[in-house]
C-alpha cells in the first residue's frame, strides 16, 4: 500500500477546484485549458485557467483528472498553488512544489505531479500561442501507464 500523507488523502477525498470553467466571453478575461495524456490512452488531466488579460493574472483554476489518488491530489494542489499568480510566476511552479504542497509523494508516484506541471505549461503556451514541442516517447520504460509518461520524460522534468 502506498504511504500517502494526510494532505494527499484530504485532497483526494475532498478535492478543491474540481470541474471546468465556462467561457462567458467576459471582456478582459480569457478562459483556456491545457491537457496532458491522450484520449486514445484513456487517461488525462485537463487544467482550466481563467486569466485576467491585462496583468496576466490567474483568477481561477479548475481541473478534471482521470487518474490515481496522487494524480487527483496533485491536480487539486496545483490549482491551489497557481491561483492569484501571474502566468510568468505560474510557469516557475514545478512538480516539486506540488509534491511539497502535498507533504511529499511516494517516490514511485512522484511522476503523478509531473503531469500537473505539464498541463500548466500546455495551458499557458496555448494562451500565448506558443507551440509545444512534443517529447518523443523514447528510450525509457513506460512508468505512468495512465498518462503515457515515460521514465526519461520524468527524469527530464524531475531534474
Amino acid at each position, binding site marked *: *500500500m*502506498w504511504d500517502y500523507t494526510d494532505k494527499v*488523502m484530504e485532497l*483526494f*477525498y475532498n*478535492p478543491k477546484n*474540481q*470541474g471546468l470553467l465556462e467561457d462567458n466571453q467576459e471582456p478582459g478575461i480569457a478562459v483556456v485549458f491545457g*491537457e496532458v495524456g491522450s*484520449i*486514445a*490512452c*484513456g*487517461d*488525462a*488531466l*485537463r487544467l482550466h485557467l481563467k486569466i485576467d488579460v491585462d496583468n496576466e493574472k490567474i483568477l481561477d483554476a479548475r481541473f*478534471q*483528472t*482521470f*487518474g*490515481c*489518488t496522487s*494524480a*487527483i491530489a496533485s491536480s487539486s494542489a496545483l490549482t491551489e498553488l497557481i491561483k492569484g499568480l501571474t502566468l510568468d510566476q505560474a510557469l516557475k511552479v514545478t512538480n516539486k512544489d506540488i509534491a511539497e504542497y502535498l507533504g511529499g509523494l511516494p517516490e*514511485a508516484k512522484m511522476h503523478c505531479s509531473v503531469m500537473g506541471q505539464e498541463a500548466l505549461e500546455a495551458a499557458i503556451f496555448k494562451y500565448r500561442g506558443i507551440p509545444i514541442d512534443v517529447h518523443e516517447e523514447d528510450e525509457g520504460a*513506460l*512508468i*505512468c*501507464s*495512465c498518462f503515457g509518461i515515460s521514465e526519461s520524460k520524468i527524469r527530464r522534468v524531475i531534474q
Partner: protein
Amino acid sequence: MQTCIYLDNNATTKVDPEVVEAMLPYLTQYYGNPSSMHTFGGQVGKAVKQARQQVAALIGADDSEIVFTSCGTEGNNAAIRAALQAQPEKRHIVTTQVEHPAVLNVCKQLETQGYTVTYLSVNRQGQIDLDELSASMTGNTALVTIMYANNETGVVFPIEQIGLRVKEYGALFHVDAVQAVGKVPLNMKTSTVDLLTLSGHKLHAPKGIGALYVRRGVRFRPFLVGGHQERGRRAGTENVPGIIGLGKAAELAQTYIKDIKHEQQLRDRLEKTLLETIPDCEVNGERKNRLPNTTNIGFKYIEGEAILLSLNQYGICASSGSACTSGSLEPSHVLRSMGLPYTTLHGSIRFSLSRYTTAAEIDRVLEVMPLIVERLRALSPFNND
C-alpha cells in the same frame, strides 16, 4: 483499523479459527524436529504425516505425492524446474499470457537460459484456444504450465481437455491451482495433471505454507537442495505449525466446498446489482467457467487505485490486479491480454469473497459503490465526453 469488509480473498484469506487451534500445540509444547531420533521429535513426525494425508485427500492424491513447500511461488518454481531437469533434451515450454508472475517470470528467466516459451493468447473472455495449444506443441515441448483458475478474473481453464492434448505430445503438465484448491473439487486420481501447486493462505491456512502435488512416477529433483526432508524432494526443516494448519484447512475445505453455492449466490447478487445500478460498467472475463467467489468489474472512465482508496475509506477491502504486482503501476497484464479498452482497463476492480462473507457486507458494498463511482466520474475529463 481492526476489521473491515474483506472482499480480497484471492489475495489472501483469514486463517480459520479451527486451523489456528490445530496449530497452536505445535507452536508451543510440540516443538520437536520431526526428523529427530527421539520420541519428542517423532510424535511431531506423526502429526506431519496426518496433515499430509489431509492435503492429499482434498485433491484425491496419495500422501506420498504431496511435497510441502513455503508458498505457491515456491511450488511453481520447483515444479517448472523439476519438469525441465527431468527432460534435459527438450527445450520448449508452453504457458499462457495470463499466468501469475510466479510462472510468467520463471518462464521469462528461462528464455534467457536457452528455452523457447510459447505464451498462449486469450480471447476477450479470458479463455484460451485449444487449437492454438495443439498447434504450439512439438516433440521438443518439455512442459505445459497452465493455471487452473485465474486470480484476477476467476476464469477457469478446461484443465482436463488441455491435459489430453498435452499427453498426445508426451510433455509434462503442471497446473498452478493456487486459486482453485478449496474452491473447486479436484481429483488427481482421474486427472491428466502431473504436477499441481497449491498455497495455504488462499484456503484459510496461514501464510508461509504450500504444497506441490507430484504424480507418482514423475521424475523429480529438489529445488531447495540440502537435507533429505520430504523424502529428498524439499530440503529444510519442516514448517511444522504451517503443515498442521494446512492439513486442518484441507480437511475443512472438503466440507466447505459442498456449501460454496451460498458464496456464489452472494457474488452473483453483488455482480448483478452493480451492473444494474452503475452505468458504463461490465464484467471482465467469461461468466460461465469461473470461480464461484470472484468477480472482476471494469468501471469506465475512472482509475482503479482511486476506487480502491475510496472503498478503503468505507472499510471495504478489494483490489485491482494481484497483490504482488500492486506496487507496480502497470495495468494488469491479464486484462491487457484480454484486449480490454484502456478506459475499462484502468478502472477494473476485483471483488473476491470467502465463506466468511455475509449478505450484510454485500449490501454495504452495493450502497457505497455507486456513490464512489459517481464522485470519481465527476472529477474525470471523460465524463460526458
